[in-house]
């Protein structure tokens, strides 16, 4: 039970309670003068009555002050906030607390974190509002509700609040609100949602929700400060799946979300070996830190880039699992053995990391990094498109290949004329179209010669306009601008090959630069899709489709050096999948059989959560914004017992008492 006032802004008038005291003090010091005939009697009387009068004076002053206080309190309209249902009548009160549990809530805001503040606010609301039914919905990557619908057991919710922690996930705030709205629509009585969040700009900017009129939504912001944060926001490797011995560029993007320039060190950690670099990041800027490394063993290799710990350490590191290949597999699809395939055989024999094989039927293509289709007749487009999800296609069209097939596979516009195959005994020469491409980086110095050197006697007269298509990169073209090697700018490149590599049709394969060019080309046109296979989003469960030879019961899941995480087995007719029971938090996870690491996964901190800037809840179009104190005040205003009549009556009674106390008994004098 407590008191609040309807007009807290007028609390200053309570200072007026000092007026009687001041009047008492100042009036005593400067009372009006009165010329009287004789004061000797008064002196005697004062001496006699002083002992009695002083307490009476103080009593009078006390009564006056109390009367003044009571009247002032009556003006303030105080309310007695009582939660006794017999005292406060009202309909069933249903509330749902939607609490932001995202990563940004773990940022410190003063002495505590934003999440701690949110928990405190939620506890206060549950304690003071004492709803008939309540529920808590955690707004994280996947909203989680404590009850399927609001329930009367508040103790459970209090325990849930005590045990809750923020998670390194993004916030699906609107989704959580939708769930809350759905739950409240099934209830009777008053319905209210309290959205407690830091209202991180990245999460809430432009958020919308359809709020019914019957549901009241109150936004409570728990963030008042924006910590200076620097984060590792991106990590990538080039190439994404290097082969043994290949120089690999590891690229980390660091973002400064503070108003100050930051100087810090970044660290690359690869299987215990460590590199560091000092960097300066401008305020609200980004820098890219580059590390180079090469690897001597094939297999999965965890990579971590980190920075010096700052005020928000959750996003100070980022992980990556590199699949290091022992070599590349290039497969030639040809109906008949061709000279071109033989050329590739020679290339493969010269490059230790390259293996070449030939198949005649598309259905017999095994796992390959690159599929070279010789004399493509335009068939099997669907299968090729499926294969190209993970395999780079190099398509050398034959004369029988129609325009439509090329257009479909490469998403090119149809030319005005039919594409012909031409021959030229004098031969054509080719030139590099895009010298800035990494494919030609090796040849920039000229040490390795001209990769396009040679004379070409046969070609397809591909339209020049294809070179200019937006999604196409032209590596090499003929001197008359006819495209020679075109590449689609997709995750898994598709190359349209218009350069004969058989010694009978060109002298190119006999040139010295040919071999390094082919090597560079093959290394740089590998798909990047493998990069993300081991990555899971924070908050989602990890899973591993077990190879047939592995028994699920022998596999454990372990994060870094932590204790094994619980897993469950999902089996169906086709596969056995191990699934982590808990949502994944940022880190590197090892699927182990005994002490042997069989498979690696990694989870990174969600980059959008690194920017800890918040927005004003009022900028959201739904709900009203209040501090929790105001929420409680409003609630009390609607349910409290008005006390002003009592204070008014008390004030009047005190005034009567004061007049009685200050007025002596009348005595008449007899003559």
């Amino acid at each position, binding site marked *: 039970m407590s008191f609040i006032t309807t007009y807290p802004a007028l609390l200053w008038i309570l200072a007026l309670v000092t007026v009687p005291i001041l009047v008492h003090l100042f009036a005593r010091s400067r009372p*009006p003068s009165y010329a009287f005939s004789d004061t*000797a009697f*008064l002196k005697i*009387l004062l001496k006699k009555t002083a002992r009695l009068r002083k307490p009476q004076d103080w009593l009078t002053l006390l009564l006056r002050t109390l009367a003044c206080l009571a009247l002032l309190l009556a003006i303030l309209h105080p309310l007695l906030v009582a939660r006794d249902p017999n005292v406060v009548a009202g309909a069933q009160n249903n509330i749902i607390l939607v609490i932001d549990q995202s990563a940004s809530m773990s940022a410190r805001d003063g002495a505590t974190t934003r999440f701690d503040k949110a928990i405190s606010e939620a506890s206060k609301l549950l304690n003071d509002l004492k709803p008939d039914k309540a529920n808590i919905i955690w707004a994280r990557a996947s909203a989680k509700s404590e009850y399927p619908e609001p329930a009367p057991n508040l103790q459970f919710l209090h325990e849930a609040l005590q045990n809750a922690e923020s998670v390194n996930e993004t916030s699906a705030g609107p989704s959580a609100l939708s769930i809350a709205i759905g739950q409240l629509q099934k209830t009777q009585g008053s319905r209210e949602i309290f959205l407690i969040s830091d209202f991180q700009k990245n999460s809430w900017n432009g958020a919308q929700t359809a709020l019914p009129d019957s549901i009241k939504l109150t936004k409570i912001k728990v963030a008042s400060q924006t910590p200076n944060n620097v984060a590792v926001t991106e990590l990538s490797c080039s190439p994404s799946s290097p082969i043994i011995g290949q120089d690999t560029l590891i690229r980390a993007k660091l973002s400064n979300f503070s108003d100050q320039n930051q100087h810090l060190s970044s660290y690359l950690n690869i299987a215990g070996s460590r590199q560091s670099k000092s960097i300066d990041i401008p305020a609200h800027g980004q820098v890219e830190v580059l590390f180079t490394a090469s690897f001597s063993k094939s297999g999965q290799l965890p990579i971590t880039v980190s920075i010096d710990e700052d005020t928000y350490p959750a996003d100070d590191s980022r992980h990556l699992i590199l699949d290091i290949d022992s070599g590349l597999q290039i497969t030639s699809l040809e109906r008949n053995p061709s000279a071109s395939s033989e050329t590739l055989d020679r290339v493969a024999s010269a490059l230790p990391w390259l293996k070449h094989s030939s198949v005649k039927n598309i259905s017999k293509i095994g796992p390959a990094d690159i599929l070279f289709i010789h004399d493509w007749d335009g068939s099997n487009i669907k299968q090729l498109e499926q294969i190209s999800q993970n395999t780079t296609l190099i398509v050398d069209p034959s004369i029988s290949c129609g325009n439509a097939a090329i257009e479909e596979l490469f998403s090119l516009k149809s030319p005005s004329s039919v594409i012909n195959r031409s021959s030229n005994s004098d031969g054509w020469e080719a030139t590099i179209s895009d010298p800035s491409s990494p494919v030609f980086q090796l040849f920039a110095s000229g040490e390795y010669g001209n990769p396009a050197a040679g004379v070409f006697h046969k070609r397809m007269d591909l339209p020049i306009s294809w070179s200019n298509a937006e999604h196409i990169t032209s590596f090499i073209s003929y001197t008359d601008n006819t495209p020679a090697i075109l590449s689609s700018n997709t995750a898994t490149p598709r190359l349209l090959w218009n350069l004969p590599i058989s010694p009978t049709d060109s002298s190119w394969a006999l040139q010295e630069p040919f071999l390094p060019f082919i090597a560079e080309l093959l290394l740089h046109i590998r798909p990047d899709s493998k990069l993300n296979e081991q990555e899971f989003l924070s908050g989602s469960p990890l899973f591993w489709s077990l190879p047939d030879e592995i028994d699920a019961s022998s596999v454990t899941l372990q994060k870094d050096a932590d204790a094994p995480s619980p897993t469950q087995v999902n089996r169906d007719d086709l596969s056995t999948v191990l699934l982590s029971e808990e949502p994944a938090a940022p880190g590197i996870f090892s699927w182990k059989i005994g002490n042997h690491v069989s498979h690696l996964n990694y989870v990174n901190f969600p980059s959008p959560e690194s920017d800890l800037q918040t927005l004003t809840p009022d900028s959201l179009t739904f709900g009203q914004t209040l501090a929790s104190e105001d929420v409680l005040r409003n609630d009390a205003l609607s349910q409290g017992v008005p006390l002003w009549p009592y204070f008014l009556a008390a004030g009047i009674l005190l005034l009567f008492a004061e007049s009685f106390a200050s007025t002596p008994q009348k005595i008449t004098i007899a003559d």
Partner: protein
Amino acid sequence: MADSQHTYLKPEDILKLRNYEFGAKSLVEGYLAGRHKSNQRGSSTEFHEYRQYCPGDDISMVDWRVFARSDRHYLKTFEEETNLECHVFVDSSASMGFKEKSKLSKLEYASFFAACLSWLVIHKGDRVGLQIFDKDIRHHLPAGSTRKHLLNILDLLEKNKAGSQTSLATSLKRAAPLLKRKGTIVVVSDFFDSPEEIFRSLHPYLHRGFRVQLCHILDPAELKLTDRGLTRFVDMETSENLIAHTTNLQSEWIQAMETHCRSLRRLAASKQIGYTLSPTTESYHKLFDQLVK
């Protein structure tokens, strides 16, 4: 005889006072044969007593007939009839200038009364004197019975202003040698003094056979102390300051004044002194009613 030019003696007062007979019940001492009995043995016709001759007695007073019968010398004494001699003491201290609820200050009220009394006494052929005092005798007019004497009294009263502190005892003590003959003393004052002190100072007069009448003049505000809240009281005589809350003191003040007046009345009764309390809001004719009872 009435003079309407004087402030303190009005024609209507004279008309009212014509029928008053002042001092009829008491013995007075005078030097003229008059309407009043004298307790002095003198040459009147009313026999008083015989007493044995003492050396120094007037031999002419010896009753030779008694000597012839008893061979002893006895004096035959007679009751002497004489005129009345009245001495009016008017308190003119600063406190007498107080007025609040009345149109008249206490001094003005006392002056009206003194003027009327003087006229009455002289009108009846008696003698009246005036003593104006505060802490000492300020003015002394010996008893007289002429119209001119009355005019002098009236002039003196008109010129009189409230003075400084009051000391009734000192004034009465100083006045004693000035009063040669016994008579009636009428003291008009607010008597803001100890009753015992006041009556102690009257003892010499009582011993000398003076008849004493005390006229206690008070403003109603002094009787009941007007409720003015917290007030800085400035003593009109001493200019002393005193801060007091009248609301708190009023009942005690009333009780104290009642006690004071009762004490004066009791002491006066014990010494056969007349005492009359008159608020200034009441007519001063009430005092004459008391005097002639």
